[in-house]
């Protein structure tokens, strides 16, 4: 018999129990909520790092799961996947550090040095000096409204679908589309001439 090698200290995740069922169970057995932590904390931690840097990510993750745990009785149990819900809570907490986030984008846009990448560079082989494209991207991110940026990054960095973003942020999916559209348009414009058609037309215009 091969021993099951789960993550250290993790409750065993059989994988076939849906998130909603885990949450329902946790109403009776609060410990069961740990399963959700083990499923999603690693990726939410990474998402927090990408937006705020290494030093704030631990607190964001801890607060996300504490908040989720405390309001688990209000979770819509018809939604089998809790990932959007958790990203929504995490995004709300990340939003409290908006100045930190914006500052890093601005600094990156101005100097090419990414303090966020530097914050985890000692743990991975990360490139900390940004390309020209990344500088422009950072400038665009700094200029977006908080709501547009949230939608854009949930799609780009958390790989949420439109429907999931709608669920996470608490807006209609049509609003997700229009926000994402606007954010992409501004980002594309910041990349300057990334669209060859635009350059062509501009020259003749």
């Amino acid at each position, binding site marked *: 018999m091969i021993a099951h090698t789960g993550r250290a200290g993790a409750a065993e995740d059989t994988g076939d129990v849906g998130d909603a069922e885990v949450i329902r169970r946790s109403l009776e057995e609060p410990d069961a909520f740990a399963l959700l932590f083990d499923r999603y904390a690693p990726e939410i931690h990474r998402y927090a790092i990408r937006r705020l840097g290494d030093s704030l990510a631990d607190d964001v993750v801890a607060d996300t799961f504490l908040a989720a745990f405390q309001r688990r009785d209000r979770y819509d149990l018809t939604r089998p996947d809790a990932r959007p819900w958790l990203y929504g809570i995490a995004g709300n907490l990340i939003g409290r550090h908006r100045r930190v986030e914006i500052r890093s984008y601005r600094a990156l846009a101005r100097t090419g040095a990414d303090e966020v990448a530097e914050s985890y560079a000692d743990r991975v082989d990360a490139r900390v000096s940004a390309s020209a494209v990344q500088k422009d991207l950072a400038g665009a991110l700094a200029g977006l409204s908080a709501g547009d940026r949230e939608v854009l990054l949930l799609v*780009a960095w958390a790989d949420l679908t439109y429907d999931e973003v709608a669920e996470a942020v608490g807006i209609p999916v049509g609003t997700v589309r229009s926000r994402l559209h606007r954010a992409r*348009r501004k980002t594309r414009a910041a990349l300057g001439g*990334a669209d060859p058609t635009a350059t062509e037309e501009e020259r003749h215009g």
Partner: protein
Amino acid sequence: MDELSALREMRAQAPEADADRLGPARERLMAAARTAPAGTASGRRRLRPGRPGFPRSGDRGRIVPAGMNRGRIALAGMAGLAAALALVAVQVAPTGPPGGGDGAPATPTVAARYAETAVVLERAALVAESRPVAATPRPDQWQYRRYVTVQPNGDGEVQEHEEWLRYDGRKNAGYDLDGAFRIQDVPPDPGDDDLSPEKYAERLRRLPTDPDELLAHVTGDRHWIDLPREDPGGAEPSDARAFRVLSVYLGQRAVMPPELEAAIYRALARIPGVAVELGVRDAAGRAGLGVFHRPAGEERERRYLVLEPDTFRYLGSRTVWLRDEVIGGEVAFPAGSAYVTAELASTIVDRPGQRS
């Protein structure tokens, strides 16, 4: 490489945390779980509506997407105004919206008052017909817009926005958070469901100016521009769609032919469920005529176009939640929440950065 792919590569080397790193956070959760009484969950506390730091987009539902612009249309030109005003005797119905029903009042503490829809909208049409035809802007001129929004999260914060859009839609400009003024190219985007001011002008010129023909046109329009593939509202009732599409057109005042504007008001009056409430305020606190559409089925939220009572100038919009909106099992916006906008300035200028 498109911007989304480039963005996906940004900070892509950020590592996923391992169990050691996550240990303290997990322990905090488990400590809370240990002290939580089994069988009940804590915190029935209702969430604050909305989320501070996450402004809702200003184009919720895309009812009024872009600037409600008057452009070069003068506010004057009201030669026929006095005559038009004399026609009107606004009737006040203190008991509720036309048709009755169970919709919650928009302002819970004050009984809403309603105007006689047909009378008000005919008056609006007469005023609109008397407006002068605006000069056509040059493609290299800019549409300047300043507006404010109030999010439905209950904090009441008024956010001000300022933007310049070139008439041909190829560039936009504004101040970024640093306070630096930026002019950006707007590459052509076939997937865009918004139009440049110039394209709006073309589109409006093609619309019928007979109210019945106009209504038939917008009722049959799958979308307010020709991009049905993005239309999420395939099941949208035709009356609701007609109101929405006409609202969008009404927002394009910088490029609005007067006879079309008149036709829009007369077409609105023909849509079942359209009504006018008095004293609806925009985000700048200005009270006006709130034109809204009441659907045949359940009314979850009500969107008012707020018009200045004399000139019928568009002041802003007010969207009121009539019922709690529950998203993901939580009350995101309780009944009574409101998303409110107000147009403060809108004009055509020669250069970006100019305000008049």
